């Protein structure tokens, strides 16, 4: 089913349940991995993903369709994940950088991480990046999103995204080659 039809059905009370499930079915995996790369922990990613779809459902009436629903949902997911990290940093009364270090420490004992040494080093390197660069790197390198889509999601110019990605890659490569 095409997205514009799903949106119409989602806005109608008689068809919204079916349409909502169709939408979730279509995007759950992509959004899960997008969120997981930000929050790192599986259970946290699960919570944030659920909240993301609940927000999508609750705000669908205000979705004006001047952008693709795909980019709109990505934006909600990104905001939810970042907001989650901010709350957690506040809860632990720590800075976002210290929280990133703590999250990397937790990864080592995470039952849902079976990466090797280089993959762990990669996560450490990513965690040292500024927040925006970290997200841009993940979206481009792993999710292979188009710059135009990323621009719509992050509300940043394509040029700035390219520069951001370029700097991120260089920093990560430099850290990994220190091994």
């Amino acid at each position, binding site marked *: 089913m095409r997205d514009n039809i799903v949106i119409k059905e989602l806005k109608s*009370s008689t068809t*919204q*349940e079916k349409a*909502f*499930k169709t939408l*979730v*079915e279509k995007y*759950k*995996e992509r959004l*899960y*991995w997008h969120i*997981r*790369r930000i929050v*790192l922990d*599986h259970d946290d990613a*699960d919570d944030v*993903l*659920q909240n993301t*779809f*609940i*927000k999508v*459902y*609750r*705000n669908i*009436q*205000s979705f004006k369709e001047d952008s693709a629903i795909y980019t709109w949902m990505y934006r*909600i997911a990104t*905001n939810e994940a970042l*907001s989650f990290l*901010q*709350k957690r940093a*506040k809860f632990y009364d720590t800075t976002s950088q210290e929280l990133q270090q703590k999250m990397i420490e937790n990864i080592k004992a995470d039952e*849902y*991480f*079976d*990466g*090797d040494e*280089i*993959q*762990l080093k*990669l*996560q450490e390197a990513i965690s040292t990046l500024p927040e925006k660069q970290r997200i841009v790197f993940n979206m*481009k*390198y*792993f999710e*292979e999103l188009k710059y135009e889509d990323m621009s719509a999601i992050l509300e940043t110019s394509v040029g700035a995204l*390219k520069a951001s*990605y*370029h700097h991120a*890659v260089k920093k*990560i*490569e430099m850290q*990994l*080659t220190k091994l």
Partner: protein
Amino acid sequence: MKRKVSKNKIDFSVPENYFSDFDKRLESSISTSEVIPKATGFTVPEGFLDDFENRVWSQIDPGTTRDKTVKVRFLYAMSSIAAILILGFLLIKPASTLTTEQADELTSFDVKTYIDDGFINLNTYDIIDTFEGVSLEDIQMTDPIPREEIIEYLNQNNVDNYTLTFE
């Protein structure tokens, strides 16, 4: 080998079409890296996403879908009543404690509405969460309750009988 060149005003030159495909060349040179692995090592529990849509749907109560227009009653209306209730429940002498019968009259909807209206432990983040995605233009501020109505409410609820104690 002689190559065609284009010249700029100060006689520096670049190969023909150098700029036209610059973006593509740059992108392809950095889209993959020999140093950075493509796999992250993250895994998920088996079958985790299989029934995800039903799990999320079970958390959504279609009856409580927010209207486009969100009526905010933080001003005099609900905040006055909530303040009175909280004072009545917590600060005032036990003579006015809620009886079992009164408590039974509270439906789960009343409790849910009370919580939904944000009278329990609201901090900045909760408020942001509650109204995230809602345009200010869609927030309709209700008119303040006239002073006479508040006095009438207080009279009807026999608030004069309560004694506030401050320590």
